């Protein structure tokens, strides 16, 4: 059996002190968009193990969903066929509208902000600490991903990339306390900042008390943060409090995406806005 060297209390106290200094310095380390040399081996090896776990999980869940959980498929199939027919006719109608919109945009020389290149990635792990909301995705620097790229699903905003390794990326979710996105209320176009709040609805801040805000209003990205293009769903307003003598409304927003159950995401492969790029470079220097 291996024996630990005997460590006296003075050495332990010194160790305690070193850890304390490290903790105090750590915000500087943590906010960098890349991993330091002493972090890389650990981040890489843990991500590889987690990727293996993900493969096992995917295997088990595909066996379950493809072979075992096929009860009621016939009924579901009939319902989907009917829905498909309805959607096909609706699609033709919407295509006509899109062509008309394209023609108008061409006439007005407007830039199409919705056409974005994206890459699909799978979530392989979640943050091990309950205090942070983040996920690790299966694509990284090799696939052209960089920090501050937006991550979405068909339901809306998921978060943004904060760190990358060649094979994996860490995505800070919308619900994290350190996350904030520029948003606007679709109906009235009032702009504010949507901030995360773990385990609770998101908060839409800086909407002045005189603004018209109603429960059920849709909140979209405003595109002014340089990460997300305009018009992606963030969520829906679930509660509005307007305290007397306050400057701003207190607004709660339910995310459009169930962030606890996301499996696959789309990363918008658009480089961050020049200002964000500059700030990022300053951070690296």
């Amino acid at each position, binding site marked *: *059996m*291996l024996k*630990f060297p005997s*460590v006296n209390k003075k050495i*332990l106290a010194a*160790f*305690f002190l070193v*850890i*304390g200094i*490290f*903790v105090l310095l*750590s*915000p500087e*380390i*943590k*906010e960098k968009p890349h*991993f330091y040399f002493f*972090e890389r081996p*650990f*981040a890489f*090896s*843990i*991500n590889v*193990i*987690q990727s293996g*776990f*993900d493969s*096992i*999980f995917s295997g088990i869940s595909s066996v379950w969903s493809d072979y075992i959980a096929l009860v009621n498929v016939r009924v579901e199939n009939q319902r989907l066929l009917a829905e498909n027919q309805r959607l096909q006719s609706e699609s033709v109608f919407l295509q006509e509208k899109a062509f008309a919109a394209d023609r108008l945009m061409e006439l007005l020389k407007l830039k199409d902000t919705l056409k974005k290149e994206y890459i699909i990635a799978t*979530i*392989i*792990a*979640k*943050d*091990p*600490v*309950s*205090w*942070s*909301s*983040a996920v*690790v995705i299966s694509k990284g620097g090799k696939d052209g991903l960089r920090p501050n790229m937006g991550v979405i699903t068909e339901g809306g905003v998921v978060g943004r990339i*904060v760190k990358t390794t060649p094979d994996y990326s*860490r995505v*800070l979710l919308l619900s*994290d*306390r*350190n996350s904030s996105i520029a948003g606007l209320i679709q109906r009235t176009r009032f702009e504010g900042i949507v901030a995360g*709040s*773990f*385990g*609770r609805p998101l908060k839409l801040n800086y909407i002045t008390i005189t603004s018209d805000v109603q429960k059920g209003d849709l909140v979209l990205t405003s595109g002014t943060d340089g990460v997300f293009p305009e018009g992606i769903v963030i969520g829906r307003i679930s509660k509005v409090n307007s305290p007397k003598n306050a400057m701003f409304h207190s607004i709660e927003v339910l995310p459009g995406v169930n962030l*606890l159950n996301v499996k696959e995401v789309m990363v918008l492969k658009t480089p961050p806005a020049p200002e964000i790029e500059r700030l990022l470079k300053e951070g690296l220097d």
Partner: protein
Amino acid sequence: MKIVLWFISLIALTALQGSVLNPVVVKGIRPDFILIAVYFFGAGYGDVRGGLLGAVIGFIMDVISAGPVYINIFTKFFAGYLAGIIDRGVQNPGFALHAGLLFMLSLIQSTGILIAYVFLGTVQFPDDLIYVAIPQAVLDGLFGGLVYLLVFRRKRDTVSRWESVLK
């Protein structure tokens, strides 16, 4: 050799803690299996070893977490160290005591994190306490007690260590 095995197991557990294979999530809160493991390691191998291993595993946890500060290196070190100290003076600990101690350790850990957040200006009091710290401590306590019942429960000496030393 046992310590190396513990270390490898803890690395695998750290990977499992955040992986999609971990089925135990209650409203986004996962029981801190690393805290539980470090606690039992500290209780079994003493305060110094518990503290050192806790610090190493805490560091790895901090690397893979998106938290804004390296805090687990500190809290896990403290958890392992404290577990070693407590175990010296405790006789025949059972489910309730282990669960209670883990509840306390988890709360102490959360207090450390909250203090860090106060300095960073991102603390949301009392919501953080109600929605994160207390549910986390309850989960840690319950799962720690369960782990004790399933894995570590064994017949202990009925004579306390102090008595045996005196004899």
